[in-house]
């Protein structure tokens, strides 16, 4: 194979065809509230960990729906479960519980 000094570049396009419906339904069975996030960002705005390390429940939920669970886990890695997000969520989501469930469901291979 010839080396031209450059090559194909991976695509960053979100491909919703890769969305893992089974796993998501498994999560939604435990956490129906995952469905009602409006992506308003209140959780991220008040996130304690987020001030130091990229951490965002909003982005985590987004990432799951965009077939990128690795990113979802990354976004929750540094969460301290302090619960400030649950105080500000306009849809009253039990965010701490949701965070734990996301980690549980998507950590197992």
């Amino acid at each position, binding site marked *: 194979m010839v080396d031209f000094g450059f090559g194909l570049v991976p695509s*960053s*396009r*979100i*491909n*919703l*065809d890769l*969305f893992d*419906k089974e796993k998501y339904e498994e999560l*939604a069975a435990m956490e*129906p509230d995952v*469905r*009602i996030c409006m*992506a308003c960002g209140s959780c991220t705005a008040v996130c304690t960990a987020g001030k130091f390390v990229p951490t965002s429940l*909003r*982005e985590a939920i*987004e*990432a799951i*729906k*965009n077939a990128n669970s690795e990113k979802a886990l990354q976004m929750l890695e540094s969460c301290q479960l302090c619960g400030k997000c649950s105080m500000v969520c306009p*849809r009253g989501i039990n965010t701490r519980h949701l965070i734990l469930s996301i980690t549980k469901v998507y950590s197992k291979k």
Partner: protein
Amino acid sequence: MKNNILIIGGGPAGLEASAQLQRMGYNVILIERSAKLGGHLAKWDRLFPDRVPADEVLGGLLRAAEGVKCFTDTDIRAINRLEKSYNVRLTNGITVLSDAVLVASGFDLFNAVRKEEYGYGIYNQVMTNADLEAYFKTGNDKRIENPKKIGFVHCVGSRDEKSGCRSCSKVCCATAVKQAIEIKQAFPQAEVFCFYMDLRLFGRHYEDLYLEAQKEYGVRFIRGRVAEVSENYDGTLLVKAEDTVASKPLKVTLDLLVLMSGMRPSASVKELGEHLGMMVEEDGYFSVRSGISAGQRSPQPGIFLAGAATGPKTLPETLADARAAAMEIERYLTEIFPDARNYKQLVKERW
């Protein structure tokens, strides 16, 4: 004396106003350019937010308007202003001497073909909100056979200067959410996506509809305008947008794409405007006398406006507008119109 009132347009606004004015004892003549009364309502299956059957609502409107003189397949040939009244010649040969005229000419749905990049009329699996309502009504559309993945595109012919439609059509967001729920009810296994820029769910119970769509039906809402649609080898659709929340380009393969065609001024507006000597604004809708304070009065004394003739409205708004117009007409015909001597003066002061 029993004044003649001509109402132009047999949709919800025209029907509601006819009923009200007839109840007040006026002699109402209703003309409708198409063969059937009811306007778009007659073509719709169910209505947001609570999904009542459109037929029920229309049935009520028709019953209330019983006794009103109706001419369908009828348009205006000519209007001339007498001292106070209007002498109106209809295309069916009849001439009406009318003391007040109500314009309830309604709206047209945006012609989705003009949004070329979405391929309506080119790609088999692309349809409009109206097509989907027709499917819900009749249960048959060759585009729909057990779709697994369905998309809804908000703002088609709305908030789009490229297709000459700057303004919001008001009803599409709620319609999309309603239809998303209904298609999910029809095909529970399907994945449903709504592509929106803003969810303009301003009305009472609309937000509940949104919550229900998320919670009970797992509809996925993606904040990004669909940029391009194309057809795959197997006939499915390739749809591209940006997930602006994730700030990344996105693609998804769909079996069916539903375009939320927005509200456009009725094609009849231009001709009517010339007949009646009434201005349309830049957006193509009739302008009202003096903004919000006289929402149903046109610049021409004795000519009134109701419903989508003055811009996109929901059905409840249209009906309320029609009732308000009836009140305005009543006031005009009782306070201003009869006083032959001071008519011009009164119009100047109170119109």
